[in-house]
């Protein structure tokens, strides 16, 4: 009886295998992100009230900064692989976009600095920026195995 449905089993299992393989890369990104959240939580030492106000704003900031960085990296990565296939004009436009995107990032940083300081003390905002930097160093330290 089961053989009647074996083609469906093959399709389902292949589907799940591909989906699982695809999700692995994204999982690593999410894992590093949750590690960053744990790191910042520990460094900032927020009160319950501060945490309740701060995290929704910080999540919003992370969403926006991710979109900016992703679009920038996607363009540059494809150009660095196929640089010969791009015209000078295209490359110039790409670099203009890169600068524009960085300007946007600075603007976003300013906007969210104001938002952060309205929900937590300025001292803790400085600690946040410091923690973000320390997090990168911590990642490098763990990669090098020291």
């Amino acid at each position, binding site marked *: 009886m089961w053989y009647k449905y074996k083609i469906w089993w093959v399709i389902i299992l292949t589907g*799940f295998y591909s*989906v*699982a393989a*695809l*999700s692995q890369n*994204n*999982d*690593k*990104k*999410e*894992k*590093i*992100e*949750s*590690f960053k*959240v*744990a*790191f910042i*939580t*520990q460094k900032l030492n927020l009160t*319950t009230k501060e*945490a*309740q*106000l701060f*995290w*929704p*704003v*910080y*999540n*919003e900031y*992370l*969403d*926006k900064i991710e*979109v900016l*960085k*992703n*679009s920038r*990296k996607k363009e540059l990565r494809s150009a660095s692989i196929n640089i010969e296939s791009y015209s000078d004009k295209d490359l110039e436009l790409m670099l203009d976009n890169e600068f524009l995107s960085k300007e946007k990032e600075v603007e976003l940083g300013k906007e969210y600095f104001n*938002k952060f300081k*309205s*929900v937590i003390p300025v001292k803790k905002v400085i600690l946040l920026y410091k923690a973000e930097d320390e997090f*990168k160093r*911590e*990642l490098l330290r*763990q*990669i090098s195995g020291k």
Partner: protein
Amino acid sequence: MTKKKYYFFILSLISANCFNAYSQEVKKDEPKHYIKPTFYINRLVTGKRTFKTNKNENYSFAQSNFGFYFPIYTNTKPNVGDKIGSVFQIIGTGNVSRAIPKFNFISSKHTLVRTNFGLSAMLNTGTKNVFFANVLPFIAEDRSSLQYKPSVRLTYMFIYNRTVSERFSYRIGYAKTYLLSGSPRQPILGIRVGKFDRFHFNFQYPRYVSFDWPLDEHITISLFNKVMGGIYGMRNVEFRGDTYNSVLFKRQEKLTGLEWDYKSDNLLSFFFSAGFVGNNSIILNEVSSKKINRYFLDVMRSNFIAAKLEPSLFINLGVQLSFGKAKKIYNNLSMYDAIDLNTNFGNGDNNDAMKSAPIPYIPSQLKLKAIQLKDVEDLFELEDIN
């Protein structure tokens, strides 16, 4: 399912996807919703259960369940000073469950199908309050007979959730549900003790009591006791000739077992649970065709069979696929409760979905395993090295 309904269901899925694709296009990759469009499929099988009063009679039950939910509308109001803006979400949901009860004292076979399409709405105000409402009309039919006329019923619920702290929240509400064999109108009372991403206790009357233990960002183990049940219209060929062309079949059982959930952050999740099914009861009572849509307790007095059953074993397994990107919700406590409400209360009246909600696990140890440069290179830019 008839062909028409099948096409309707497929069309709903396609439109759900199109809608989501459209809403993602509007703001270039920036996630708009807190909930990802999700499809799930699960199957429950129970062993033979003999009647307590008559050991010659037995009954077993198997159910397959296919459903989906997707965000339709999300409105996040901006913060004003130190006041957090409210979040309002509307979620579409659909579910088809196909139940096959087997009675050794009824010769005919019955395939009982319930199809529902409904809406949930959630409002997070401030940092502590979540209001949840869910309306699910459904069609119940006996697919084994074309003569059987499907009946339409409705379940709904309203819940207020208060997130007191990251370790405690409570819920009160009101529901119309067919999970219990008593009155379908039930209060909802619930508490959670412990953080969502650590060992915690959940008591959610009338649905479940559980101890949940997230081991890491992927695996959660739960020890649970949950109620399952339903009301179905069944074609009548066994009882009193054709005086009654329909029989109302009501079942209720309590499942006690262990659930193992594997939750991927993206796309794929699955669960497996097994244990004992006890506190079983089934009721078969007569319903004239005129009464089929009326409040079923009116006809409780005329039962053909009302039996309590011996315990047995069950297996429940399922797979879940989530697509796209959702807004980040790290440490957003009231949103954790909202997501949990949608997962455990918002998806049909079956109470057989995956228990653990997509709530991020925040590690306590600041040590990443098996990390490589290629995993983190996206995080660094040239300026970071200077």
